[in-house]
């Protein structure tokens, strides 16, 4: 995971509350075998509507989503975070997030900052008055800056530390790599290994055919 200290990008005002994960990414997109390439799936149902914010050219390349309260409720699908990230979002700001969505975001390196409803409103006004305006999010100072306006946001200390260090769960475990290596040295010899492959003699399997 990349280390996150500050990010500057186009702010996207999403004037909606209770954006659930089915709206972020509909279930039909869950059959895919890839972990990337979900950008087309993001807000798929709304993208067909010309007036939807991401369909306005000024916002199309946005990377900081400014949403209403209770963002990310509903199904626990990790795909919601993948879709936001694949589209290009680095940060979502909202007055309140669903727990699982926040947890998944933290694992995947998407910053979720909690602002007061008041400050969200201020940001919405600024972004709508001047579409395409940039926002700077400093994880270090826990502030959001948009033009003259600088306001604080909240984020869990542990998650912030992990994001600033660029550590996902795997990265964290790998910090204990020495302990893992040490443990491996104590494993008994007879513990099975899949390689080199040992197997019974090769045999032909006859293909069953449909019965008429």
């Amino acid at each position, binding site marked *: 995971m990349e280390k996150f200290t500050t990010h500057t990008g186009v702010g996207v005002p999403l004037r909606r509350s209770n954006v659930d994960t089915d709206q972020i990414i509909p279930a039909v997109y869950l059959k895919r*075998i890839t972990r990337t390439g979900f950008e087309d799936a993001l807000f798929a149902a709304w993208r067909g509507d010309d007036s939807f914010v991401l369909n306005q050219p000024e916002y199309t390349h946005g990377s900081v989503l400014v949403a209403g309260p209770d963002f990310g409720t509903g199904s626990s699908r990790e795909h919601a975070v993948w879709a936001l990230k694949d589209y290009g979002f680095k940060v979502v700001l909202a007055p309140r997030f669903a727990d699982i969505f926040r947890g998944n975001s933290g694992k995947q390196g998407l910053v979720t900052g909690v602002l007061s409803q008041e400050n969200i409103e201020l940001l919405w006004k600024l972004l709508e008055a001047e579409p395409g305006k940039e926002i700077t999010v400093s994880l270090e100072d826990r502030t959001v800056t948009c033009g003259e306006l600088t306001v604080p946001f909240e984020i869990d200390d542990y998650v912030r530390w992990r994001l600033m260090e660029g550590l996902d769960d795997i990265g964290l475990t790998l910090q204990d790599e020495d302990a893992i290596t040490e443990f491996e040295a104590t494993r*008994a010899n007879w513990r099975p290994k*899949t390689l080199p492959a040992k197997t*019974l003699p090769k045999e032909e*399997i006859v*293909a069953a*055919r*449909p019965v008429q």
Partner: protein
Amino acid sequence: MGTTLAEKLWANHLVKKGEGGAPDLIYIDLHMCHEVTSPQAFEGLRLAGRQVRRPDLTIATEDHNTPTLDIDLPIADATSRKQVDKLRENAKEFGIRIHSLGDADQGIVHVVGPQLGLTMPGMTVVCGDSHTSTHGAFGALAFGIGTSEVEHVLATQTLPLKPFKTMAINVNGTLPKGTTAKDIILAVIAKIGTGGGAGYVLEYRGDAIRSLSMEGRMTICNMSIEAGARAGLIAPDETTFEYVKGRPHAPEGEDWDEAVEFWRTLKTDDDAEFDTEVDLNAEDLEPFITWGTNPGQGLPLSASVPNPEDFADESDRIAAKNALEYMGLTPGTPFREIPVDTVFLGSCTNGRIEDLRAAAAILQGRKKAENIRLLVVPGSARVRLQAEREGLDKVFLDFGAEWRNAGCSMCLGMNPDQLKPQERSASTSNRNFEGRQGKGGRTHLVSPLVAAATAVRGTLSSPDDLEDAPAALV
């Protein structure tokens, strides 16, 4: 105070104790992959520029999507083919051993591990598949994981985990004839409920469990997950050692002796305490079937379709009502009078050689009932070969059954083996959820003996309902 087997296994694999509420870091001895839950995990590795830490502790097989007919031709369904191709690509790129369709070691991941001797007592075993609990039959801590965890194990060979609670399931007494491991576990689930095991590792104990073969023990541990448990396990004994001995990956010579010496220490101490205990008397058991749409909705075959009004609990009442509606059943109908369309003999629950033998012993010299389609799907290609060596394929074919290639098949209908809407099946698999075996399909979970007797009579039946049933079974 002593410790339980599950706690010993945990302690044996502790890489680092979690401090201040952080989870423990647990080492994983064997990681099995299949095509459905692994693609995003491999892609995650690729995106992060990571390698598989221990390809030599990882194995892949193709099972969920694979067809059971025409396996020498390209897979017809495009999505299935894509998933299988992806697994092959990933295995190649990351240096993982894979058993592909057509290979003698291909088959359901939970049949292949034990068969190759890769599953042994005292291990930790994981797979992106909930029925990984099967491997607990060897006295291993074995459980299913999600795709992010699959990636975690691939990259680190460990998992951050919080300890599980422990539950003893004591089954004592002698099982009546015609009653099997499947009936024990269906009765356990009916007793504790589909959520009764949540957060627990179940340890099955008692002489009824001890007297089971490894196949029977695997059937029981396999379905622990249907009681909501994380894992199920059985302490290893001579039966276990006997099963492992001589398999391709089994230790040899001095290694074998050292291993067995260690394995003998793998049991719950006499003074250990479980968080919960449940008792069941094997003598009281009889062939069990499910009548509803979750594995906890089960009753003895000798009973009748229950009346939802008789359930004391409001939510059980509603669940029963919905289930009967979906299943197309009328309260009060004796189970034995319910006609069945399809009998499915297979899956990681009951697709092993012993299961096929038990069914064949009943079908031998008989013909299937008119209304029945019997699908016999060995759990692995080796099971198929073994059955063919014993002439079981002939017994099935003469009976009028379809003899298929190995895979998950109708257990979840990801391949073409599916029920049609409203079609009724007696299935030796483990889940009777709505639509699991095909949209609108109606599933009764049964043992291989009940499956076979049902195929003969055409209605839900046990071996005692047959004239001249093999003496050993009645």
